């Protein structure tokens, strides 16, 4: 009997708990719930807390995450206004604005994401198609208009998302820029050519400088040598002038001077190996003819 009483109490407790789960529900912070009655939405609960409801077939509860979701768009190729291809990836922060239209039109977060993806892709291409490439990439920081593009896309999709899907777009951002594969290859080629040009420039600078230095050295050498040549010539001329000065004394008796000079030449040219043929008239050998006769 006592055991039966315990069991009955336990069963009653379980039944009571079961009933409670059917008439109460909790909405957590960051969630939003829609109460539908036999399929028709009745009310939306946006504040967190404990609420009551009717059991199953009469009321069904759909809960959704009410926080801001981040949707990453795909890395897609678009065209700028001046016809250049660029890959752009944007991300969007969105949240549920009206839970009841959200449930009716979308039904869940994955469906919302695909809806937003569609909107994003359309307006992203449209907005980027209006700006030239230099608004995206530019060495001048003021010319780059990334934030304006983000704002334009946000403005374009915000109303649509609100009206069509009951979603609130909080922010957008451009997360990545890229180039298609073919253009990437040509950019690589250009980068390589640029570096090549730089390398060639350095090399030729070096060669030019080397030639200049060598030429300067040669010029200096020539200058030194010609200077020295000039000086030497001057010195030699000095010597010759002094000698000429001294040779003026020969003017006093030119005949004697010539005679002495002839003697010098005689002495210098008649070397040991010379074979000399003299006439017997030549002094002193004229003595051979005249002998010891006094002449």
């Amino acid at each position, binding site marked *: 009997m006592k055991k039966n009483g315990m069991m009955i109490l336990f069963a009653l407790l379980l039944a009571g708990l079961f009933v409670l789960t059917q008439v109460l529900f909790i909405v957590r912070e960051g969630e939003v719930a829609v109460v539908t009655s036999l399929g028709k939405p009745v009310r939306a609960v946006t504040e967190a807390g404990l609420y009551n409801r009717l059991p199953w077939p009469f009321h069904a509860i759909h809960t959704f995450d009410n926080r801001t979701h981040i949707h990453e768009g795909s890395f897609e190729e678009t065209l700028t206004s001046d016809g250049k291809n660029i890959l752009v990836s944007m991300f969007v922060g969105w949240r549920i604005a009206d839970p009841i239209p959200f449930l009716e039109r979308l039904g869940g977060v994955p469906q919302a994401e695909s809806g937003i993806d569609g909107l994003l892709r359309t307006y992203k291409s449209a907005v980027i198609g209006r700006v030239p490439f230099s608004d995206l990439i530019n060495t001048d920081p003021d010319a780059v208009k990334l934030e304006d593009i983000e704002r334009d896309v946000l403005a374009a999709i915000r109303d649509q998302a609100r009206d069509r899907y009951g979603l609130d777009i*909080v922010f957008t951002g451009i997360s990545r820029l890229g180039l298609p594969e073919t253009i990437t290859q040509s950019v690589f080629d250009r980068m390589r050519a640029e570096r090549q040009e730089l390398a060639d420039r*350095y090399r030729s600078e070096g060669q030019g400088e080397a030639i200049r230095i060598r030429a300067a050295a040669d010029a200096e050498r020539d200058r030194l040598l010609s200077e020295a040549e000039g000086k030497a010539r001057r010195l030699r001329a000095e010597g010759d002038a002094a000698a000429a000065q001294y040779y003026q004394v020969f003017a006093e008796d030119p005949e004697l001077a010539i005679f002495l000079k002839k003697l010098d030449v005689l002495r210098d040219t008649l070397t040991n190996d010379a074979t000399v043929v003299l006439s017997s008239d030549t002094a002193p050998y004229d003595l051979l003819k005249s002998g010891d006769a006094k002449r």
Partner: protein
Amino acid sequence: MNRTGESSLVVTMGLGGLLALVTAYLYTSSGMLFFAALMPGYLLMISVSLLALVRIRLERVAAEEERNRAAEVKAASSGLFGSSGDLPVTSRRTQRIIETFLVPAATPVLALILSLWAWRLHDGLPWSITAPENALIAASFLAGQAFLLFLLYRFMLGMSRNAGDRLLRGPALYTGLLSIASVLGAAAAVAVHGGYIPADTLAGRIMTGVWALLALELVWRTLVMIYSPRRRTFASTAYESRILRSVLSPKGWTTSIAQSVDYQFGFGLSGSWFSGFLRSALIPLLVFQIALFYAMTAMTVIQPHEVGIKERFGRMADADPILASGFHWKLPWPFETVRRVPANDILGGAVGFEDEDETRREVLLWTIPHYRNEDLFITASRSADVRSAGAVPVNLLAINLIYEYRITNAAAYAYGFSDPETLIRQVAYRSMTAEAAVHDLSDLLGGRREQVGNDIRGRMQSRADEAELGVEILFAGIQGIHPPVQVADAFQSVVGSLEEREASILLARAYTNSTLPEARAEADAAEIAAAAYRDRRTTQAEAENDHFTNRLKAYRTQPEVFRSRLYLETLSDALAGSRLFIVDAPAGTDEILYFNFEEDPFTSVLDMGPLSEGDH
């Protein structure tokens, strides 16, 4: 005759068939894979019920026929006409045939079918996770089925305790098994409806395991049946699973446990007060355990790197919602829950690469990729000649950025965004892209890297504050930056060319250093030689001057003598070693006769001849 057993078996079969059809329909319409796993149960239930029904019926009919025959025999023995003669007891013979052949064969046949089905379930059916529809309908159907089958099972099990209806035990056990399986399926369907899709696959796998176990046991029983000496009595109920019996008749297993304990210990342990106490206290103990588990949800421990947010009925508690690390009391489960946020941890991430490979190389070169997947960022380019139409004035760089952040506002972080880490990573990418788009390649590769890192941190922080993320970006820095691997060699060759330039200039300077001193030396030598010449000439001229002047003086005193003397002295010096030929030159002749007697002119008689001038 109590035909309740038979009718209950008929009910079981009919109900089983109907439920199997509904199950098949629900399998196709809802897509819940568990229904496919449930089908073998119906087969077991129906076939075993059929077998039991046949056996009971045959037994009954055979007994009736025997009674009739006995009555007939009695009547015939008192009558004149042996009217019918010996009617063969066909039912008894049929029964014997069935009992000898069909019943023992039932076990291996069932084992075979069950194992094939289990194998098919394990291997062939697609256990991929798809979202079943109408899970709630499936759940309610399974719950109802469980209830009905449970009633049948208890009823038949109770009836089987009577001696005459013992054959009902088999069908009862299989019905009970199906009932429990339906409960499992209902629980899985509720879980699927609640969002936990893998529950379906899990329940299906459990059932596959159960069928496999049952098949194994039936194979074992077949073998025992073949080799056991108690063949006939064992064979009659070989198809009843012993495991099922021990699980589904609880009283059976407590008594069997008690019996085995008694056997082991050698005395009536099961009769002691302790085991009696255990038996009576088992349920309350279980309940107390559950209550204890529940009470433990009233306590919570927050780890040192975390911060807890207390939520009462889902919304943030009004008083002191933020719980610091340590132990805290709270209301048990549905009333208060705790959401954990890693607020004391330094979290971080990376942009531009995937850092999963743990193989670190010693030297990171620009020509080898640093990581497996590296993103290329577009940077602006200052090259002036690239403004031609169609050309894209950009460079590409591989940049590896890392960032670190800390949660400052736990509530904002937890309740503002569903995936804050992704948001921060996207913001980091955005900041990096924006910074790269306005800088030139040489700025980023060169000395402004740190500055750019700080700028990125600033951008990220302002964006995070704008979005009210509740984090503080502690650090952002460019960990590695290099030109794409495909053009890295061109960059490296620029450095080589700088070296070449230096080399050219240095070689030219060396040339200068060798040429100029040489030239200077030559110049000096020329000058010195010229000076020497000048001095020599001057001295020589002076000497000649003096010489001449002296001689002039001497000459003037005695001209003739002076001349002759000087001439003759000179001649004697000059002709000293020379070979002289003094020839008498008569006037007017040009002919000169030359005789050289030093040489031997006549070498032989035949050689005599006129000497000509050309000979010597």
